[in-house]
C-alpha cells in the first residue's frame, strides 16, 4: 500500500529545514476527524481563522456526534470539522475532502467513504491500538492491508511525538500530551498549506493567558507539528492556495449562522430602540442562539429560559404587548408547540419573531442533522385562516440580513414572522462582510400616540400597510383590551357577525399578501432555458453546482428565494420564462407544492431527505439531466 514509513523513533531526524516540493491548488477541502474528546472543533476553528487571515475564501462545516453521548473511540463518538478554502469565491464546505486528518480508527472509518480518490490521509498511528480498532469495528488495522491503497496515507505517531516534544517542559504530564495532540495535528496541516502561524500562536497566548502551563503545552505541540512537517520527509509536497482575489472589498469576519442571527436581532433592537426579549426553551440546535444572546446583557438583551416552548412564545408575545422586541427561538418539535400562540399573535396583530432552526424530523427525528422540512408547517401549522409571513436565511452570513428583515416586517406590519434557518446554517461558518450600522434600513416602532382630540381610540383601525396601531400600556388615553376572539373591524370589540368575520379574514390576509418584498433576482445567462431555484441553506450548493455546469460550458439560470410568504411579485413571471425549473430541497418537495398551487407551474423537484446539506456535485448532475 502507498504509505511512507516514518523513521523508527530510535534514529532521530536532523532538524534541518528542507524545501519540500510546492504545488499550487485552486481549492482544497480538509477534514479534521477524531473522537469527541480529541478537540477537532478547536483545531478546525483555528485553522479556519488562520485561513481567513491569509485571505482565502472559505466555508466550514462542523459535525458533532448525535446528542447521545457515545463511548470514546466508538464510531458514534466521532466528531469532525471540514473546511473548504480557495483562491476564489466559494460557496459550500465542499463535497469530498482532499485531506483527512484521522486521530483514531473510528474517525478513519467514519469518514473514509466521503474522501475523493487519491486523497491524503494523515493518521495518528499511535491511536491504532487493537482496542481502538475493535471499537471502530475493524478486524485488523487498515494501515496494514490494502484497504487504503487508493489514498496517500501518512502515518504519524502523534502521541509519541507530542510526548517527546513536551519532555523539555517541566510538569508536563502524559495527560497534557493526550490533550495537545490536536494542536500537533493543526501544526502539521498549517505547515502543509503554509498557513500563517502567528495568528494561531496569538490565539493560544490570549486564550490561555491565565494558565501559563497549558499555554506552553499547546504552543509546544503546535510548533512541534509545524516542525514535523518542516523536518520529516514524510510529507514531500506542500500546497499553496493563493489568497482569493474575487471577493468584494470590505471588512470581514468569520462567523457561523448562530452569531449572525443573534447580531441581526441585536442590530434591529438597537436601530429600532425596542428592548430585545428573547424567550426560548433549550433544544438542539436552536439552543445556541439562546446561549449567544444570553451573553449580551451589555447590549440590553434580556434572555429568558422558559419552562417550555409554549411559555417561550407567550413570554415573547407578552414582551411585544409591552412594547418590546419579542423573539422566540426553537427547532421543529418546539415549533409544533408554539402554533397556538402564534395564532393568537395573528389575531392580536402584534410584532413577534419566531426563529425556527430546522433539524431533521418527523418527531424527535435526528436532532443533530439538518433539513428544511418545516416550511409547510410554518405556512399552515395553525388552525383557521392564520397567515404568517416567512423569511428564510440562505447562508451563515445572510442570517444577519434575514433576522433583521424578519424584525422589520414584524414591526412595520404588526405581525408574527417566522424566520427559517437550519442546523447547517447555525453551525457552519464563512467570511462575513460586516455591514455598517448606518447602512441598515431604519425600523420605526411608531407607537400609537395619545389622541390629541380625545377621540375614542380604535385599536383595529389600519394604516396604508393594513397595519393596526401598536398602543403600549402606559400610554394615557389608549387603554384598550384585545384578545383571540374575532374582533370588530376598527373598534376591536368582540364580534360574532358573519360579514365582519369575512372582512377581518380578508384584511388579515391582504395585510400579509401586501407586504413589500423585493423581486427575486435571477442570475441569468443568455440562452439558458433551465432555472435552478432554491431557498434556505442550499444556496451555496446551488451556486456551486450552477457554476460547475457553467464551467462545463453549459447555460443555466439561478435564483434564490429569501421571502417565502409573501412570494416576490415577479416570481410567477420568472418561473414561466423557463422551459424547466429545477427546485432542489432538503425535504420531500415542500416549496414545490406551494409554487405549483400558486402558479400552476410544473416545477421539477429534486429532493434529498438525508439529514445533510445538498452537495454541489449532485446539483450539477441534476441540472445536467435537465439540459
Amino acid at each position: 500500500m502507498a504509505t511512507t514509513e516514518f523513521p523508527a523513533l530510535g534514529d532521530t531526524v536532523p532538524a534541518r529545514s528542507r524545501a519540500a516540493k510546492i504545488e499550487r491548488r485552486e481549492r482544497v477541502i480538509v477534514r479534521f476527524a477524531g473522537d469527541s474528546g480529541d478537540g477537532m472543533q478547536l483545531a478546525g476553528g483555528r485553522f479556519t481563522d488562520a485561513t481567513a487571515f491569509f485571505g482565502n475564501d472559505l466555508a466550514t462545516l462542523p459535525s458533532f456526534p448525535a446528542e447521545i453521548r457515545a463511548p470514546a473511540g466508538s464510531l458514534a463518538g466521532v466528531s469532525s470539522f471540514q473546511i473548504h478554502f480557495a483562491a476564489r469565491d466559494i460557496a459550500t464546505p465542499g463535497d469530498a475532502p482532499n485531506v483527512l486528518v484521522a486521530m483514531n480508527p473510528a474517525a478513519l472509518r467514519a469518514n473514509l467513504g466521503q474522501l475523493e480518490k487519491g486523497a491524503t490521509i494523515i493518521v495518528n498511528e499511535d491511536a491504532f491500538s487493537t482496542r481502538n480498532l475493535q471499537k471502530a469495528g475493524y478486524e485488523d488495522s487498515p494501515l496494514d492491508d490494502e484497504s487504503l491503497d487508493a489514498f496517500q496515507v501518512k502515518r504519524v505517531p502523534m502521541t509519541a511525538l507530542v510526548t517527546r516534544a513536551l519532555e523539555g517542559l517541566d510538569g508536563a504530564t502524559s495527560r497534557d500530551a493526550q490533550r495537545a495532540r490536536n494542536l500537533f495535528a493543526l501544526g502539521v496541516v498549517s505547515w502543509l498549506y503554509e498557513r500563517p502561524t502567528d495568528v494561531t500562536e496569538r490565539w493560544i497566548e490570549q486564550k490561555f493567558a491565565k494558565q501559563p502551563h497549558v499555554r506552553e503545552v499547546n504552543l509546544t505541540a503546535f510548533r512541534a507539528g509545524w516542525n514535523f512537517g518542516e523536518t520529516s520527509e514524510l510529507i514531500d509536497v506542500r500546497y499553496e492556495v493563493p489568497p482569493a482575489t474575487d471577493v468584494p472589498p470590505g471588512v470581514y469576519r468569520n462567523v457561523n449562522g448562530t452569531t449572525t442571527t443573534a447580531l441581526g436581532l441585536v442590530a434591529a433592537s438597537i436601530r429600532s430602540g425596542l428592548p430585545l426579549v428573547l424567550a426560548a426553551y433549550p433544544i438542539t440546535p436552536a439552543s445556541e442562539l439562546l446561549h449567544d444572546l444570553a451573553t449580551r446583557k451589555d447590549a440590553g438583551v434580556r434572555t429568558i429560559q422558559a419552562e417550555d416552548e409554549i411559555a417561550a412564545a407567550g413570554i415573547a408575545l407578552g414582551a411585544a404587548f409591552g412594547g418590546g422586541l419579542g423573539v422566540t427561538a426553537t427547532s421543529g418539535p418546539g415549533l409544533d408547540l408554539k402554533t397556538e400562540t402564534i395564532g393568537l399573535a395573528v389575531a392580536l396583530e402584534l410584532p413577534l419573531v419566531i426563529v425556527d432552526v430546522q433539524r431533521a424530523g418527523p418527531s424527535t427525528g435526528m436532532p443533530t442533522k439538518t433539513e428544511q422540512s418545516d416550511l409547510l408547517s410554518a405556512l399552515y401549522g395553525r388552525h383557521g385562516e392564520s397567515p404568517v409571513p416567512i423569511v428564510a436565511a440562505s447562508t451563515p452570513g445572510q442570517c444577519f440580513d434575514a433576522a433583521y428583515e424578519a424584525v422589520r416586517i414584524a414591526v412595520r406590519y404588526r405581525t408574527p414572522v417566522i424566520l427559517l434557518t437550519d442546523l447547517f446554517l447555525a453551525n457552519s461558518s464563512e467570511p462575513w462582510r460586516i455591514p455598517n450600522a448606518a447602512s441598515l434600513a431604519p425600523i420605526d416602532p411608531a407607537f400609537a400616540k395619545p389622541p390629541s382630540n380625545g377621540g375614542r381610540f380604535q385599536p383595529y383601525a389600519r394604516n396604508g400597510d393594513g397595519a393596526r396601531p401598536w398602543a403600549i400600556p402606559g400610554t394615557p388615553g389608549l387603554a384598550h383590551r384585545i384578545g383571540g376572539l374575532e374582533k370588530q373591524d376598527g373598534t376591536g370589540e368582540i364580534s360574532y357577525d358573519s360579514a365582519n368575520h369575512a372582512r377581518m379574514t380578508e384584511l388579515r390576509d391582504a395585510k400579509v399578501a401586501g407586504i413589500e418584498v423585493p423581486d427575486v433576482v435571477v442570475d441569468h445567462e443568455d440562452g439558458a432555458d433551465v432555472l435552478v431555484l432554491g431557498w434556505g441553506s442550499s444556496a451555496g450548493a446551488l451556486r456551486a453546482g450552477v457554476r460547475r455546469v457553467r464551467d462545463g460550458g453549459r447555460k443555466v439560470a439561478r435564483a434564490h428565494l429569501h421571502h417565502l410568504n409573501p412570494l416576490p411579485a415577479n416570481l410567477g413571471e420568472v418561473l414561466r420564462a423557463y422551459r424547466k425549473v429545477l427546485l432542489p430541497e432538503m425535504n420531500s418537495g415542500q416549496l414545490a407544492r406551494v409554487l405549483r398551487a400558486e402558479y400552476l407551474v410544473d416545477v421539477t423537484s429534486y429532493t434529498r431527505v438525508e439529514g445533510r446539506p445538498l452537495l454541489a456535485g449532485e446539483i450539477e448532475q441534476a441540472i445536467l439531466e435537465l439540459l
Partner: protein
Amino acid sequence: MSAALPLTKADFQSDQETRWCPGCGDYSVLASIQGFMPELGIAPERIVFVTGIGCAGRFAYYMNTYGMHAIHGRAPTIATGLAAARDDLSVWIVSGDGDALSIGANHLVHALRRNIPVKILLFNNRIYGLTKGQASPTSEYGKVTKSTPTGSIDPPLDALSLALGAGATFVARTVDRDKQGLAEVLRAAAQHRGAAFVEVLQDCPVFNDGAFDHLTQKEPAAVNRIPLIDGCPIRFGLDHEMGVIRDADGTLGVARVDEVGADRLVVHDPGCEDPSLAFALARLGVLGAGPLPLGVFRSVDAPPWGDGLVAELREARERLGDDELDALLHAGDTWTVSG
C-alpha cells in the same frame, strides 16, 4: 385620557356590557376590584389585566385598563413577558380553576417559583363554566358533571397546596361575596413585591350552584370562616369559641377553645420563611363542607424575579448608538479585503 388622581371606581369601569349569567359570583368580584383599584393610586393606563379563557377570562374586558384576553392557560406567560419588558406597570392576572390548574398549571407553578412581579387571581368555581359544565381539577371526587355523568374519579387539587409546593411567596384565599375580606387580601397582594397568588372562591349559579354557600350565607359563614390574622391565635365560630391547635403528631386540628385552653392555639405567622406552617393551614380545610381558613396564608418578602434588570438593560441600551453597534458587529478577529 390619563385619569386625574384621585381616582374613582368609575375610572376602572370599561364601557363593555358585562356578559356573565345573572347571579354569577364574578359580578361581585368585579365590583369589589373596581371599587378597590382607586386605592392603589395608579393611573388606569399603568395597569394591565391579563386573563386566560373562561368566564373568569372575560374579566379583562370590563376593566378600563390595558388588557389582554389571552389563550387558555397561558396568561402567566404573557404576564411574565410583560414583566420582562416593563418595570413601570401593575400587572394582574385573572384566571379560572381550569385555566390555572388544568391546562395552565405548569405556567402557574413557574410564575410562582420565579416570583414574577404580578398578582394572580384565581376564580375558583370548581367547574368549567364557559364550556358549560364539565369537571374542573378542583371539582370534588365523585362529582357528576357533563363530562363525568357517573361521577368524577379524579381527586381534586388544592390550589393553595400546589402554590405553596411551587414556592409561592404570597398565598391567600377569599370568597366572592366577602367584599371586605376580598379588599383586605387585594391590599396585601398589591403591597407584595413578587408573585401574589389569591384564590377567590366563586359561585357559578348555573353549573355549580351554591358550592360555597357555607362560606357566603350569613348563618353558616359565621361558623365556617376561619379568619387568619397575622400575629393572632387562630380562632373562629360565632363567639370565637373554636380554635386551631397543633396535635401531638404535629398536624393541625380544630378544637373548642374552652376545652384545650387559649394558650394551645396556633398563632398565625404568614411571614414565616418555612412554608410548612402555611401548608398545614391549607390542609386543615381543603375545600369541602367544613370550616375553611380565609385570608393571607403566607406573605414572605423576597426579591421579585429579575429585580432591577429591566432598568439595568434600559440603561445599557440607551448607551448604544450606531458606533457601538458597529463595534459590536466588528467584535472578534476581522480582516480587510481592499478592492
